[in-house]
């Protein structure tokens, strides 16, 4: 038994190490790029760090941004564990936000009821949207990379159409945005003068819930389908159903991220609401090694990069595109890392006879 415990602990570090190395390598390469560009790496990194964590306001902004990234990434990780490449975090986030805002601006109910109802509506919308994607995969064998990508466009245009058309705020002077959600429904601010809101706790609860979910039989089933569909099938698992369920769950997380942001910071719909959240979430999920706790930390890391990057640009005169470069490098190293790992495990186990 002691043996088992040690092995587990070791496994934990083993799992962490590749991500840390990826980040480190990305920083090293960035240093070289900075030197080549004639910038001071020290100034860049101190500004980046100070920009993300330097004072309570910046710190709060880092967390504000980390919330949707983490929650979408949780969803991404669910799908990835089943080897379903759901890359449509943006559209699923947007659907959640649209539904949340619609419930709040069109229904005339007490705030608490609106809050709960919009939560349920966003959750349901996410589940349904995900089920649709899952059904297309399971029944029609439509490649989920393509379908989720295409839906990103469809939903983005839908959002545009809504804010320029039917959902446009009639008293908003023609701005492409909806009316505001009643203040009483919105998440409370955690710190005066910042945008940090109680939605942070919702995100934390979701991290914990997903952590626990992986310890349930249904969680194991998803992992099993991810490892081998044929073994899962032979073991009496309904693979199609699992695919639909996995996509539903995955999209539900992103939709809830939309709900949290709608009620936490935006308060209304605007064009291009999600920005690059969906793609950042993919990297965050991978860097977090598809583990809920890992995702929480890597979300904070990426959010810090983005928030700190702004400061760096303003105070050290180093272009924000550096942040994009670091992001890109992290992606490259994460991917190289997994390829290396696969090759390594082949060498260890794959050539093993029988």
């Amino acid at each position, binding site marked *: 038994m002691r*043996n*088992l415990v040690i*092995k*587990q602990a070791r496994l934990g570090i083993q799992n962490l190490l590749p991500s840390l190395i990826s980040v480190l390598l990305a920083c090293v390469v960035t240093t070289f790029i900075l030197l080549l560009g004639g910038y001071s790496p020290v100034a860049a990194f101190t500004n980046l760090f100070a920009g993300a964590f330097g004072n309570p306001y910046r710190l709060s902004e880092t967390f504000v941004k980390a919330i949707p990234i983490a929650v979408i990434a949780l969803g991404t990780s669910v799908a990835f564990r089943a080897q379903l490449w759901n890359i449509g975090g943006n559209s699923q986030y947007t659907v959640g936000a649209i539904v949340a805002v619609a419930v709040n601006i069109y229904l005339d109910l007490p705030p608490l009821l609106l809050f709960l109802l919009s939560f349920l509506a966003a959750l349901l919308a996410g589940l349904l949207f995900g089920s649709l994607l899952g059904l297309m995969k399971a029944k029609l064998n439509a490649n989920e990379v393509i379908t989720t990508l295409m839906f990103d466009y469809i939903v983005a245009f839908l959002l545009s159409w809504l804010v320029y058309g039917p959902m446009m705020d009639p008293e908003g002077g023609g701005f492409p945005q909806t009316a505001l959600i009643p203040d009483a429904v919105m998440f409370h601010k955690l710190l005066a003068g910042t945008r940090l809101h109680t939605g942070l706790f919702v995100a934390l609860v979701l991290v914990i819930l997903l952590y*626990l979910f992986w*310890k*349930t*039989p249904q969680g*194991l089933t998803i992992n*099993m389908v991810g*490892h*081998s569909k*044929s*073994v899962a*099938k*032979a*073991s*009496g*698992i*309904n693979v199609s159903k699992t695919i639909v369920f996995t996509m539903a769950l995955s999209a539900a997380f992103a939709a809830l991220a939309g709900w949290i942001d709608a009620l936490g910071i935006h308060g209304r719909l605007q064009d291009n609401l999600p920005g690059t959240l969906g793609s950042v979430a993919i990297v965050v999920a991978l860097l977090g090694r598809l583990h809920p706790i890992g995702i929480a930390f890597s979300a904070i890391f990426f959010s810090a990069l983005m928030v700190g990057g702004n400061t760096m640009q303003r105070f050290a005169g180093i272009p924000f595109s550096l942040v994009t470069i670091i992001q890109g490098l992290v992606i490259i190293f994460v991917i190289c890392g997994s390829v290396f790992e696969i090759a390594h*495990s082949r*060498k*260890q*186990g*794959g*050539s*093993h*006879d*029988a």
Partner: protein
Amino acid sequence: MGEAILQMKGISKFFGDMAANDNVNFSLEKGTVHGLLGENGAGKTTLMNVLFGLLKPDGGTIFIEGNPVTIHSPAQAMELGIGMVHQHFMLVPTMTVTENVMLGLHLPKFPLLNPSLVKQRINELSQQFALDVDPDALISQLSVGQQQRVEIITALYHETTILILDEPTAVLTPDEAKELFVILRTLKAHGTSVVLISHKLEEIIAIADEVTVLRNGELVGFTKIDKEVTRKEDLSAMMVGREVSFDFKKQKGTSMHEVLSVRELCVNNERGVQALDHMTFTVRRGEILAIAGVDGNGQKELCEVLTGLRQPGSGAITLNGNDITQASPKQINELNVAYVPEDRQKSGLIMDWDISKNLVLKNFRKKPFTKGLFLSKKEMDEAAEQAVEAFKIKTDQVSTLVKNLSGGNQQKVILARELATDPDLLIVSHPTRGLDIGAMEYVRSILIAKRNAGVGVLLVSADLEEIFQTADRILVIYNGRVMGIVNPDVGIQKVGQMMAGITTGEAHA
């Protein structure tokens, strides 16, 4: 003879703190076939992987023709004249023989190989050693035996003086095995030395000149083989440390209650060709019905249909009175059917998971493995400890990943899972393939015990010895058709003929 082409001295290899090889000495003489024996997990594959540069030894030296060498990679091993055929073929089915040989050569990318030269060499080798391989054929069109010869060609491609074959006959039919031995004798005559890993002792006696026996990673024996004198029992005693007996006690009298009934079953394979042709048979409670046949005569499709993994074309299947013709694997599972599939790596095990989890693939949702909402790791591990104990799965902990187990021990994990429950119907496909003789005895005794306890057993096997030791009735399958259902007392020869498609009238039981 007399001159050692290869010597491995004091080889040690540790995985964690377990010694897979512990100070092993191995010496191979020029132009001989050297049998490497040992129980599952004894360290045979490990020793050969060290020699082939796939594993780095933790100690010891390798000498080739007296010169010490360090082998870092298969490419280097091949340069030194060493070739290896792994038990699991590493061929790409959609590519031609020539392309696969090129892939298997572990060559650097540059300079580029000239396919026509490779083709020429294939033809040359093919002729020299009577391998009979068409360089332009697609792998997918070849039989298992032919595929193996492609692997052998790859292994022989460079001026190979040492050929390693890891359990080459496990997947071959008896005839294919005979052909392989002809090839080995030709190689021997050309001065090539062969290391042959096998669990089939009669084969070793028939072809090997010398044997080395490993147990628990240690060298426990070396002997020269004299076909006239050496007995199977001597070798198995060296391997297992005791005499192994295949005298099973069967209780008399099978019941007439039918567990499984198959009527006029027709099935197509994935290429749309008819794989099963109007098959009709029954399995009764407390009997072992063996399906005897050369591999590829519909056995795989039969197992898949019976377990819900494949849709039948026509016909009817009933299990204890329930129509399961269209049932899903899940439904069939719930009707108490256990299944040991033929391809353990593709349909039996999740190689990246540990032993504990692989043992509960089918029932992790049930108590005690799920308590309330959550899985109980403790219960899984405890059950796994017991299974490891009962089936003598060689590992130091139940959290070992299945991919790190030896081949035979992987097979034991599946058997432990499927035999743990008390099924109504047990379908086993080649259950002892790759198992050592002790494990083989154990598995067969379990099949008999299950039968005695009233389980209906459907045993698919190509091993006639296994069939005659265990079966109550034998169904011979040929080209997807029932050639006949006979009692074991018709004799091996008769069944062998039927397997080859030769009918001689009568034969029914």
